């Protein structure tokens, strides 16, 4: 830029400038187009409500299979007649198939070792086996049933679901279902992997230290609304960029210091370096 061509020199540099400008415009347009194209593609992938169709059967064959599985995997802690074993595991009489489904489908049962809180793992049993065990436990003691049908309702209920979620759930699971700490090593787990059915069965049965939210307290419509809210929240994009965990100001402060101040420190080191 130091030896700027005088105006009389005329056309050549101007065309070069024009070429550069048009190149820049083309680049900007290309960027825009990519954005629009992505938007259209992304729009096609609409989240769908999950409908539970896999209710456990009352078929005696299934129950017998469930019993076999129970006697192989569960009996040491929960006892031959589901009555529980002192210091090992609680009685399962009356917990219902919903509780079995939650515990087994999330891999919490069978438990590897006793800790402050049983952790979510890769499930040991597949879906069919889980339902068989559930059917067996239900056949012995009864209790909360696995819900069937539409677990999310319609999208009309999202705002209501949000209010209920913030009143009943967010205090432990955080505003975006990302979990939180409880007293002395216990915690409310993140709901990242929870599907509609585990959310429902958790509310119905209050696993571990979670309070129970029975149908008289949170109606089925309200549970649909909560489930719909949680799952929609998980599925929807973050309009403001990387969500950094959706955990509020702690990760934000970390980013401000490490990324923000860090980057600026590198810059001043560079600016201050002798050239």
């Amino acid at each position, binding site marked *: 830029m130091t030896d700027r061509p005088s105006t009389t020199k005329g056309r050549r540099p101007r065309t070069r400038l024009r070429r550069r400008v048009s190149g820049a415009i083309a680049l900007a347009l290309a*960027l*825009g187009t990519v954005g629009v194209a992505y*938007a259209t593609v992304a729009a096609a992938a609409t989240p769908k409500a999950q409908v539970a169709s896999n209710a456990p059967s009352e078929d005696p064959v299934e129950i017998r299979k469930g019993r076999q599985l129970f006697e192989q995997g569960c009996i040491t802690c929960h006892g031959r007649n589901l009555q529980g074993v002192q210091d090992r595991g609680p009685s399962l009489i009356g917990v219902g198939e919903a509780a079995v489904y939650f515990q087994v489908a999330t891999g919490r049962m069978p438990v590897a070792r006793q800790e402050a809180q049983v952790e979510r793992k890769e499930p040991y049993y597949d879906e069919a086996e889980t339902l068989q065990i559930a059917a067996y436990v239900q056949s012995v003691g009864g209790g909360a049933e696995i819900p069937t049908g539409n677990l999310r309702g319609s999208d009309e209920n999202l705002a209501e679901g949000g209010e209920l979620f913030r009143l*009943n759930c967010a205090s432990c699971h955080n505003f975006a279902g990302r979990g939180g700490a409880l007293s002395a090593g*216990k915690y409310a787990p993140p709901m990242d992997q929870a599907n509609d059915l585990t959310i429902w069965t958790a509310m119905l049965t209050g696993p571990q230290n979670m*309070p129970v*939210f029975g149908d008289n*307290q949170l109606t089925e419509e309200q549970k649909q609304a909560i489930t719909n809210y949680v799952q929609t929240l998980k599925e929807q994009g973050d*309009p403001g960029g990387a969500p950094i965990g959706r955990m509020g100001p702690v990760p934000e402060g970390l980013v401000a210091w490490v990324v923000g101040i860090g980057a600026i420190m590198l810059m001043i080191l560079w600016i201050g370096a002798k050239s």
Partner: protein
Amino acid sequence: MSDVDGRHLHAGTPVPDVDLETYRTLSLEDQAHEASKIDGVTITHRRDRFPVPGTKAEKRAERVVALCFVAAFVGALAFTVCYVVLPWRYDISSDSYAWFTPVLGLTMAISLFGFGLGAILWAKLLITEEESVQERHGGYSEQEDRETTAAIVSDGWDMTGIARRPLLQRVLGLSVLALGALAIVPLGGLIKKPKGELFRTGWAEGTRLMTGDRRLVRPGDIEAGGIETVFPATEEGLSMQVRADSVVLLIRLRPGQTVTPRPDQEDYGWQDYVAFSKICTHAGCPASLYEQQTGRLLCPCHQSQFDLLQDAKPVFGPAARPLPKLAITVDDEGYFVARRDFNEAIGPSFWERP
């Protein structure tokens, strides 16, 4: 320090010894040297980065700087285009809107980085390198300035005669104080007398318990090990005030759990139901992280832990007082009702609280 135009009041500034006519005949660089001297600046090192113009290295440096400004231009242009073109409205059925802000931020950043880098690289690669030394003068004025100023101040003070007039001294001091009060007194409009609301909530004898979605609560509604946030049932909507001070956590214990009540509060619960203020006695957050097996209630703000089985006694963390307990019973129609307001102030401690 006879220099009256204020420029050379500090000692030691080397004044260029050339007159204006000679100065005009100097080269621009020498003129700058002389001009700097007036401000106590000596350019000790000055080096053209490219003594031979038009070398490959110079062109490369120039291109780098130019590239930065091109990036600034392109970024700003892309920002404008994206701002106009990209879909931006929230739409529940697609994620396309989620790209709007990141793309805007990115293009804006590219533009700003380009411009900033361009300017800095220009300074680092092209602008003639220099090192200058500027004189810095002592932290205090010249002795004669100090003394002459002091004389002026003292003389003026004498002229007012205030030292000899104690009456004026006092009256003046008094009126200055009063004028100061004029600035502060109107702030009295902010002051409100606390009217004992801190000791009262929306609960009274016979007030029914109502959920956030305005349902009355009956004993069968909550399962064992369940909790429900309740408010005093009113005809009109829940005001923020009521939500802030009357919110109560109704808990149904698990079979086998029993609460050891405080003295005089043996009858506050109803069968396996107990009701406590949800407002933490520490800093006022809703303490509502209930562990149904251990009976512990945790406050998410400062981790105070209350043991409900010991009647909400604080067992860990900074809270010092148990959560106030609401006396409840069931009325003739089978709904939960409060038997009276709390017998103490809810929420965080304050001075007047006994």
